C-alpha cells in the first residue's frame, strides 16, 4: 500500500517551483520534507493536500488517482503552521467541525471529540475560544482537529516552528508517539534538520524544487548523496575543503597555493576513479580526530577558538595553508587556544564530492 508522487512539476507563472518530483513511500511511514526556505517543500505538501494543483504529474494512493479530487475528498487531515483554528468557535466545535460537516450524528461527535480531547489533555479547555489559549494549547487543538477524523494521511506544515524551544522538544516526541499510536501515514514539512532526523522514518531533502536525496536518517547522515545534503544535515555543519585531488594514493589540497597532504586514514573506500578530478572533501566535526600531543610527522593545526557545549568542546583549528576546520571533541580533552594539535580524518566519516556535479563519489 503505497503513496506515490509521479513526476510532479509546479510553476507559478514563470517561476518553476517543483522539478520532476518523484517519490513513493509506504503506509504508516513518517516522511519528512526538509530543506531551506523556498525549496518547495510547502508547495509540495499543499499539492498533497489538494490546495494547489500540480502543473503536471499525478498523485496516487494505492494506485488510485487522487490528484483530481477535492481536498475534502482525499481523506487527509492537515495541521497548519499557524494552526488555522476557527476563531468564532470554541475548542469543542473546532475539533468537531470535520465530523459535523460529514453529517456524523451529534452524540457520536461528542464521544469522539471528548476522546481526542482526553488524549491531548484538552478536556478542561473545550469551552474556550482560540484566542484564550496559549500557543501550545492551540497547537494541540489543531492536532485534535486532524486526529479526530482518523484520516488516512496526516499532513503537517511546520507545526512546531511557532513554539518556544523547550516546548518544541517535548512536542517532537509527542507527535511521533501520536503517529505511532494512530497507525497513520504522516508527511511532515520542516526547515529544521534536527526535527527531520529525530522524527522520521524517511527524509526527503529538498533544494530549489528538486529532491536531493530520499532515505532513512542514517542513510542521509552517513551517506549524503551530494554536497548540499551533506552540508544541510548534521549539526554543527560539515567541514568543507575545496580544491582537493588525489595523487599517488594520497589526498592533497591546494587551495592555499601550496599543496598539503590531508591525513585521511585510507582512500580505499572511495572507489577507484579518483585521479585527475577536482574534488571536494567533506568531514563532520565529529569525525576529525584530535591528538593533543601530536607525533612528529603528522599534520598539525593551531587551535584558534574553543567553545564549550555541555559535554563536548567545539574547536576552531587553523591548518597550514589557511583552512579553518571545526572539530568536536570530548569536553575533558586537555586543549587550550594557540595549542598545536595533531589532526587525522576518519575515512569512514570522510566524503569526497565531485567538484563539478557535487555528487558524492561513493554514489557513482
Amino acid at each position, binding site marked *: 500500500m503505497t503513496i506515490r508522487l509521479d513526476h510532479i512539476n509546479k510553476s507559478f507563472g514563470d517561476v518553476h517551483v517543483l522539478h520532476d518530483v518523484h517519490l513513493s513511500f509506504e503506509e504508516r511511514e513518517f516522511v519528512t520534507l526538509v530543506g531551506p526556505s523556498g525549496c518547495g517543500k510547502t508547495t509540495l505538501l499543499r499539492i498533497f*493536500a*489538494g*490546495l494547489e494543483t500540480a502543473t503536471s504529474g499525478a498523485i496516487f494512493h494505492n494506485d488510485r488517482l487522487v490528484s483530481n479530487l*477535492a*481536498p*475534502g*475528498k482525499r481523506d*487527509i*487531515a*492537515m495541521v*497548519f503552521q*499557524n494552526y*488555522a*483554528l*476557527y*476563531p*468564532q468557535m470554541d475548542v469543542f466545535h473546532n475539533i468537531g*467541525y*470535520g465530523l459535523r*460537516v*460529514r453529517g456524523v450524528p451529534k452524540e457520536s461527535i461528542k464521544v469522539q471529540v471528548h476522546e481526542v480531547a482526553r488524549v491531548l489533555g484538552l478536556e478542561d479547555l473545550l469551552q474556550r475560544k482560540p484566542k484564550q489559549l496559549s500557543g501550545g494549547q492551540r497547537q494541540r487543538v489543531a492536532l485534535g*482537529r486532524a486526529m479526530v*477524523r482518523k484520516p488516512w494521511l496526516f499532513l503537517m506544515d511546520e507545526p512546531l516552528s511557532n513554539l518556544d524551544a523547550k516546548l518544541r522538544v517535548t512536542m517532537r516526541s509527542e507527535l511521533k508517539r501520536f503517529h505511532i499510536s494512530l497507525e497513520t501515514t504522516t508527511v511532515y514539512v520542516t526547515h529544521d534538520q534536527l526535527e527531520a532526523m529525530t522524527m522520521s522514518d524517511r527524509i526527503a531533502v529538498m533544494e530549489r524544487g528538486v529532491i536531493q536525496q530520499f532515505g532513512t536518517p542514517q542513510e542521509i547522515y552517513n551517506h549524503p548523496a551530494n554536497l548540499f545534503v551533506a552540508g544541510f544535515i548534521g549539526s554543527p555543519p560539515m567541514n568543507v575543503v575545496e580544491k582537493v585531488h588525489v595523487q599517488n594514493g594520497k589526498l592533497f589540497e591546494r587551495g592555499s597555493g601550496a599543496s598539503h597532504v590531508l591525513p585521511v586514514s585510507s582512500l580505499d573506500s572511495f572507489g577507484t576513479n579518483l585521479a585527475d578530478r577536482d574534488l571536494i572533501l567533506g568531514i563532520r566535526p565529529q569525525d576529525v580526530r584530535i591528538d593533543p600531543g601530536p607525533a612528529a610527522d603528522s599534520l598539525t593545526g593551531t587551535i584558534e577558538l574553543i567553545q564549550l557545549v555541555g559535554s563536548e568542546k567545539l574547536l576552531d583549528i587553523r591548518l597550514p595553508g589557511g583552512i579553518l576546520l571545526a572539530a568536536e571533541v570530548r569536553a575533558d580533552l586537555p586543549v587550550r587556544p594557540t595549542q598545536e594539535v595533531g589532526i587525522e580524518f576518519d575515512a569512514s566519516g570522510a566524503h569526497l564530492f565531485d567538484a563539478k556535479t557535487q555528487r558524492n563519489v561513493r554514489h557513482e
Partner: protein
Amino acid sequence: MNSQFGHAALKVIKPALAYAALLLISYIICFPLIWALSTSLKPSSELSAMPPRIIPQTMTLVNYKHLITGKQQYFGASQGYQPSSAPPQHFMSWFLNSCIVSGGSTLISIVVSTLAAYSVTRFRYPGRRLVPYFSLLGYMVPSIILVFPLFMVMTRLGLTDSLWSLVFGYVSITLPFCMWLLWAFFRGLPLELEEAALIDGASRLRVFFEIVIPSAMPGIIAAAIFSLIVSWNDFLFGRVFMNSIEQLPLTVGVMLFFEGVHVDWGLLMASAVLMTVPMAILFMLMQRHLVAGFGAGAVKG
C-alpha cells in the same frame, strides 16, 4: 530647587493646557448640535429672548410632541400652513421612509460587495484586479453627475416618487466604497482558515457562510455603517427623485419647513435633533468598527 519646581509645574501645566485646548475644540465641534438641542427644548416664546441661554429657562417637549404625533390640529392657520399639506405632520412618514431606503440600499450594497470581495480575493480569473480600482474610481464620481441620468431611468421605469427609486439610487453612491473597503478587508483575511475547512470536507459554499462571513464581520459592519450614514444623509437624490410630500426622505422633508410664512425654529431644531439621533447612536455603538474600517485602505473624504 527652582528649576525642579518649574519642571514639576510644567509637567502639570502642559497636560492641563492640552486638556483645556481639547475641551475647547470639542465644544466648538459639538456646539451646533448642543445649540440645536437647546433650541428644540425651548417654548416658542423663549426663542428670540435675549440674552440667549444654553439651558432653557423653561424646558418643553412640545416640539418633539408635534413632530412625533404629527397631529394636524397643531399646525393650524396661525402658523401659515394649509392644514391638508402641513409639512411637519409628515415627519414620522419621512423618518420611516429614510429608514426603509437606507436599510434597503445598504442591504443590497453589502450583499453584492461581500460576494464580490470574496470572489475577487479567492479566485483567479481575468480582470479581477480591475474591480477594486474600478470601485475606487466610481467612488470619486460626484453624485451630481449621477443623479440626472438615474432620474431619467427612474422616470422611464415609472419609479419616480416611489421609495424604490431611492433604494436603487443610493446603491450607486454606496456600492463603490463598500466594494473597496470589503476588498481591502477580505484581502487581509488569512486563507488558512478556509483551507483548513476545505480539508475538513466543507464545500466552498459552506466555507463561505460558516467560516468566512463570521471572520469578515468587522469589515462588513464597517461597510454597512458607512452605507447607512451616506444614504440617510443624502439630500440630492431625494430632492430630484421624489415629489409627493409623504414620499420624501427626512432630509428633503425637513427643508420644506422653510416654505411656510413663519419659520418655527424650535420645531426645525427638534427635527434636526431627531434626524441626527439615529446617526449618533450608530456612531457611538460602532465607533471601533468605523475607525478600523477607515483604516483598511480609505484616505478619502
